[in-house]
């Protein structure tokens, strides 16, 4: 199980909020990426927190600077809308792109990316919110509902060629109360893609219930790392000691 650091970036700063809102600055993106790399992180996920809303791609300079010193996989998300955006992200040094809003607006983009760059390059990103005993997919960084049922949507992303799913619980995001396990299990059952889970991690005990048969492929962690609640070494130790 990979341990992935998530850096939400706005105006050149790493920021953190609750339910993807109420943002607070926590550091410099290249410094934090380098710090987590030296602490043995498995992967870095850069998320442009506002790109989708304001139509811009501000993250590529940060990525290319980070890539000179960070030698683990880098995923970039937020505002990826076209093959050109993907090309730029990869040229900057990203290994994968995560697409959410643009996929909802045009699912064909996922298959175009998969065809040109391979499925391993395209992460289907889902922001899920609980609604009437199920989950609805949200876009534009958790602001816009889509009427899409998350469990159906994940299958369509997989069928279109997504090689990985990043699942964020908007309800649990920033709360440090643990992952939304019902959501995690429902989505894992629905897809054969590797699933990385995001939103809610606060302490090691939160991992106990996911060390089952069908573990996620990765844990995406933001606030707990930024606020030094848990060290990467501790998390990796827990993962190592609980997995066969």
């Amino acid at each position, binding site marked *: *199980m*990979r341990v992935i650091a998530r850096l939400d970036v706005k105006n050149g700063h790493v920021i953190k909020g609750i339910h993807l809102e109420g943002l607070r600055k926590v550091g410099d993106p290249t410094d934090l990426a380098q710090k987590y*790399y030296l602490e*043995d992180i*498995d992967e870095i996920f850069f998320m442009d927190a506002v790109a989708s809303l304001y139509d811009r791609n501000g993250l590529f300079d940060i990525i*290319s600077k980070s*890539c*000179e010193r960070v*030698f*683990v*996989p880098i995923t970039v998300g937020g505002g990826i809308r076209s093959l050109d955006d993907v090309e730029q992200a*990869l*040229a900057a*040094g990203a*290994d994968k792109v995560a697409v959410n809003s643009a996929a909802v607006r045009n699912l064909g983009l996922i298959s175009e990316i998969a065809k*040109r*760059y*391979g*499925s*391993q*390059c395209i992460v289907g990103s889902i922001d899920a919110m609980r609604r009437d005993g199920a989950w609805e997919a949200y876009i534009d960084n958790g602001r816009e509902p889509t009427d899409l049922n998350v469990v159906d949507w994940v299958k369509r992303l997989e069928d279109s060629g997504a*090689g*990985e799913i990043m699942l964020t619980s908007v309800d649990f995001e920033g709360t440090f109360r643990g992952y939304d396990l019902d959501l995690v299990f429902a989505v894992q059952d629905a897809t*054969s*893609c*590797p*699933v990385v889970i995001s939103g809610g991690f606060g302490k090691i005990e939160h991992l106990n219930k996911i060390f089952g048969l*069908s573990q996620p*492929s*990765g844990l995406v962690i933001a606030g707990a790392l930024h606020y030094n609640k848990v060290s990467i070494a501790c998390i990796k130790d827990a993962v190592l000691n609980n997995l066969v």
Partner: protein
Amino acid sequence: MKLGVIDYGVGNLRSLYNALIPLGVEAIVSSNIDRLLDCDKLILPGVGAFSYVKKRFDEAGLDELTTEVIVRDIPCLGICVGMQLLFESSNEFETTCGLGLLSGKVVRLDELDGREDRDCKVRIPNVSWLKVNFTTAQLKDGLDLFSNISPDAKFYFVHSYAVSHASKDTDAHSTYAGIKFCASASRDKLFGVQFHPEKSGKNGLHLLNNFAKMGKKNEK
């Protein structure tokens, strides 16, 4: 010592190049056959579908390079799909011939023989950090690519297809979802690794350094 990274339009060459810089290696990224043959060692990267990668390889006229590499005995390291190209064929999307320099066929991970648990759900692609099972006996016997790397070291894999661990050119295997596959292979001066050393942190950099320094003691 000059290292050439073969550029034929597939793969994240910048990451690979960035990873060679801290090693103090003189490296070039090129598609020019003469410039590449002027290097002491070559790296063959590759990302994406095998058939597409092979097509680009052929279009770039690299079969000529391959012949020269073999004739001149230039050490070459294939990475991920670049490694797979060295084998006989792949059935990704359609059956495509490889370079046939190593023996074995590339097949989907869940089609490999020797799966231990057939009921276990195999999530594909395999995107994970895995141990590579080499032995100290192999290290003593000259598996220099892994020299001074701990047997507990993990490397970053991202792939849906692989070669059987039973291929006679396999040096070390890894296991994903109970499936054993070839993680590292070699014959003479040709090497291949299924994982991405340029994305595998300090152990990956160490392996690239081992490749760059390999055979140095025999040089004048």
